[in-house]
């Protein structure tokens, strides 16, 4: 752990550029073919990462429209803007979209884009798997929304409790589509998790031993491991639900010996870690932004890393606090109270470390840092209500009310969306080569912060006043009208804030100020290459001399001996990042798309016939064969050549 020090006065010196001939060769071997086909074939992690981010933000906008529709409906009592049937679809689609199609994928998208850059390599470990993960995610999202367009939107809530979501009480294909969509996104998340874990462990630049990994890489590593353990649980929940619905099994039917509570356990064993799957990458972003804003290393990095890891472990031990009202034995519930409260310790540790990092540093108050300050204030409130919810008697009062709605929006918008928007602003120059407008950025933060609090703070009060969540209307006599109207007005302000961000991004993409390689004078490797980076990321694979390579006094040395005429990356050892061997990564391929389509045939077709599984299996076999068909170029291990 290095001590805090002054912001470096000099930019790191340019590394010697390779000869133009070598660059041309790199371009030839790493470039993506032109044309539509080339677009579909791309395995460049930056292309795919950007696709993830843009697609996820599109779904964020759709989820936002749904939220706006709900706020319109609830703005006054006995409103007839939406009927209950449509309202139920809209709130279910809102939750499903935000959790499965926005929050997780957008974090993964940034991980896919930035983890290879941050560890100083040229692509993720399994580029074709990466492409496949994106396609299956996109197809799942389109599947869900196509269903919605045909009045088949999910309508049993984003956690779709049985028996309500079971065959008897949710006829038609609405919940079928929901359950199968979950499978799409699980597969996508697992694909990303696997490739990020391997990239982090095996492709770090030489010298980037595990203690020198940047905080965002740590966060994505922890996130990926959580995905590996959490997703299979929801796969069982949604898979059993689909079986109950489509072929008449009785996993969750109490009349036949099934158990509706089993579904809740399976779902929340995933569902609670899901919150941390969203939240942990955001914590990594906060650390990165603070470090750049203060111009010095983050304080207490080992503590921060250990906090992330312990949050991940504890995150698997609290799912029952979503089920306190189901009548579980008290002693068992008390265990989950303890676990739910304990998770405040690592979170608190991080907040203290960040405050200490900022302490007396005279930080630059640029937009990403303003988002982080907004994060602090909002997330603190959400954290406090979270600790309160761990207290069982109190939980029983406010569970499933607007208090909980307020709580998880404070945690998820404050804890994840604010850092995300900060990180998007922070990394925008790297993504596009241009800066976002500071002036518009400040307005965005202010509007979002005010709009958010005006929308969600009154909801705490509504919860106490007896307003359950997921009600499509309420009586004028209930006394909830004023608070709901305030919340709806706040939502309008929040929407304007988000819209301003979109306008800012679109405008800056064309007309923003050119950024240069390292506009924030930050210390991590993604800033060591051009903005946006070339398809091969780095002309030279750099050697990492310490915690903050770009603030290092001396010029960074680099690795020689990697071939440029094919997609070669340097594989290093997991802990000390000593060079181990060279590996050749596969190039562009259309087959990930076709494999994703073959799975889609199965998941969509099962709505009508179980035979779709067979058809899908055959198609899968064919496309996977093509995926692995040898191309004549050697891939795999090559020893490091001695210099």
């Amino acid at each position, binding site marked *: 752990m290095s001590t805090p020090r002054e912001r470096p006065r000099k930019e790191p010196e340019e590394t010697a550029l390779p000869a133009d001939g070598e660059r041309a060769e790199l371009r030839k071997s790493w470039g993506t073919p032109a044309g539509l086909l080339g677009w579909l074939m791309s395995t460049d992690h930056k292309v795919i990462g950007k696709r993830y981010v843009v697609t996820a933000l599109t779904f964020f906008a759709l989820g936002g429209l749904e939220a706006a529709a709900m706020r319109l409906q609830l703005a006054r009592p006995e409103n007839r803007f939406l009927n209950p049937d449509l309202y139920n679809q809209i709130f279910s689609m809102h939750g499903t979209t935000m959790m499965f199609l926005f929050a997780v994928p957008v974090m993964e998208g940034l991980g896919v884009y930035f983890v290879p850059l941050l560890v100083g390599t040229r692509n993720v470990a399994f580029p074709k798997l990466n492409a496949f993960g994106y396609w299956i995610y996109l197809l799942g999202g389109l599947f869900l929304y196509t269903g919605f367009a045909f009045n088949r939107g999910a309508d049993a809530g984003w956690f779709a*409790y049985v028996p309500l979501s079971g065959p008897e009480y949710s006829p038609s294909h609405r919940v079928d589509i929901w359950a199968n969509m979950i499978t799409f996104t699980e597969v996508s998340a697992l694909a990303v998790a696997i490739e990020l874990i391997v990239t982090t462990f095996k492709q770090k630049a030489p010298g980037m031993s595990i203690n020198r990994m940047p905080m965002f890489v740590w966060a994505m590593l922890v996130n990926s491991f959580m995905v590996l353990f959490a997703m299979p649980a929801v796969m069982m929940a949604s898979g059993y639900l689909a079986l109950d619905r489509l072929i008449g099994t009785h996993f969750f039917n109490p009349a036949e010996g099934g158990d509706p509570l089993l579904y809740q356990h399976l779902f929340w064993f995933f569902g609670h870690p899901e919150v941390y799957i969203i939240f942990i990458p955001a914590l990594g972003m906060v650390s990165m932004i603070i470090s750049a804003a203060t111009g010095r290393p983050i304080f207490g990095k080992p503590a921060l890393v250990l906090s992330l890891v312990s949050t991940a472990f504890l995150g698997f031990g609290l799912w029952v606090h979503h089920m306190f*009202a189901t009548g579980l034995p*008290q002693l068992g519930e008390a265990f989950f109270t303890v676990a739910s409260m304990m998770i405040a310790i690592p979170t608190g540790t991080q907040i*203290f470390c960040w405050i200490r990092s900022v302490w007396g540093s005279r930080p630059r108050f640029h937009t990403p840092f303003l988002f982080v300050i907004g994060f602090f204030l909002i997330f603190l*409130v959400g954290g406090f209500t979270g600790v309160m919810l761990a207290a069982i008697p109190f939980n029983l009062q406010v569970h499933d009310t607007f208090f909980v709605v307020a709580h998880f929006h404070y945690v998820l918008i404050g804890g994840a969306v604010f850092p995300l928007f900060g990180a998007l602003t922070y990394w925008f120059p790297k993504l596009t080569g241009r800066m976002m407008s500071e002036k518009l950025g400040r307005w965005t933060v202010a509007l979002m912060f005010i709009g958010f609090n005006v929308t969600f703070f009154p909801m705490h009060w509504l919860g106490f006043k007896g307003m359950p969540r997921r009600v499509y209307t*309420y009586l004028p006599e209930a006394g909830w009208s004023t608070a709901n109207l305030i919340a709806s007005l706040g939502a309008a302000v929040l929407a304007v804030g988000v819209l301003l961000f979109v306008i800012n991004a679109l405008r800056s993409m064309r007309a923003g100020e050119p950024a240069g390689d390292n506009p924030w004078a930050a210390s991590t490797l993604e800033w060591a290459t051009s903005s946006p980076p070339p398809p091969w990321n780095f002309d030279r694979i750099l050697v990492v001399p310490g915690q903050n390579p770009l603030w290092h006094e001396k010029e960074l040395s680099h690795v020689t001996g990697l071939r440029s005429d094919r997609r070669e990356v340097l594989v290093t050892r997991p802990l000390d990042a000593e060079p181990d061997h060279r590996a050749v990564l596969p190039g562009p391929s259309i087959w990930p798309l076709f494999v994703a389509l073959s799975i889609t045939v199965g998941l969509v077709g099962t709505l009508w016939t179980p035979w779709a599984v067979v058809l899908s299996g055959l198609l899968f076999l064919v496309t996977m064969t093509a995926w692995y068909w040898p191309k004549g170029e050697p891939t795999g291990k090559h020893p490091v050549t001695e210099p």
Partner: protein
Amino acid sequence: MKVPARAPFARASARGATALALIAAAGCRGIQSALDPAGREASRIAGLWWFLFWTCTAVFVVVTAALLVALFRRRTAQSADPKRGRALIVGAVGATAAILLLFLIVSVSAGRAVAEPAGPNVLRVQVTGHQWWWEIHYPGTPDNRDVVTANEIHVPVGRPVLLELTSADVIHSFWAPNFHGKKDLIPGLKNTHLFRAERPGVFRGQCAEFCGLEHAKMAFTIVADPPEKFDRWYESQLLPAAEPATPSETHGRDVFLSSPCMFCHSIKGTPAFGMEAPDLTHVASRHTLAAGTVPNNRGNLAGWIADPQSMKPGNHMPPMAMPGDDLLALTDYLESLK
């Protein structure tokens, strides 16, 4: 974070109180409020909340102040010392852990108090959730003094009430915020929920677990009465339905018994024995119709019978097409079932 401004909202809610004037007249400002407790359990929980709230507010102020100082203060030689920083953080984490331990103790002790065993004179009430109404059954064993009603629970003040909760279809959740937190009604399981009313009044509760189309309109009334008044109510509910007193009421009963009504509803003392919908033996004595959707009065009752789907779209009562005089007679009859 600031104290939720209670007064303005309370004024607004008072302005809006017209249709449920009956309930409002019972004299309580917050008839559906966790912060205006009327029962032992809710009082204990409200106390827990205020403790959590003030502690967290204090911590919020301290942390925010620290953040502001961190943001705007110049570096001093003292603050640059990493050892001091580390000590501060260890201290702050220690304080966090101490506060959490305190919360745990307070929470567990509140939990124990709320879960205190019922004692022998407990009043048992079976509550069955249906899409979207509440079936209420007071088992009157051993002498067959069962009372069956719907969407309205009467309880004696001061006597513990043990709810036995289950569901006939999907998962619902019973929540009367003035008395206690919620407990789920799960098909195939029997949950119990204990509370004790401490002051008389008319209160409102609502289903808290999403249960389908009309989740929003699945409410119930809790009437807490002094014991002697409760006993009078119980005796009155034991009686079979009132005999029709006027020709119109007699005609109304004939309409009821010759129409689809009797297939789902029952009226004690008549051949109507349907078990799928609320018992109507004493329907006119209840405060609301359609599980808290509208106040129980003649106009709403007739409107409900004629077109239940416009008041509560998706509920399981079909619209009844019948001649106007039949409808009026039927309304007369049901209005007489005090």
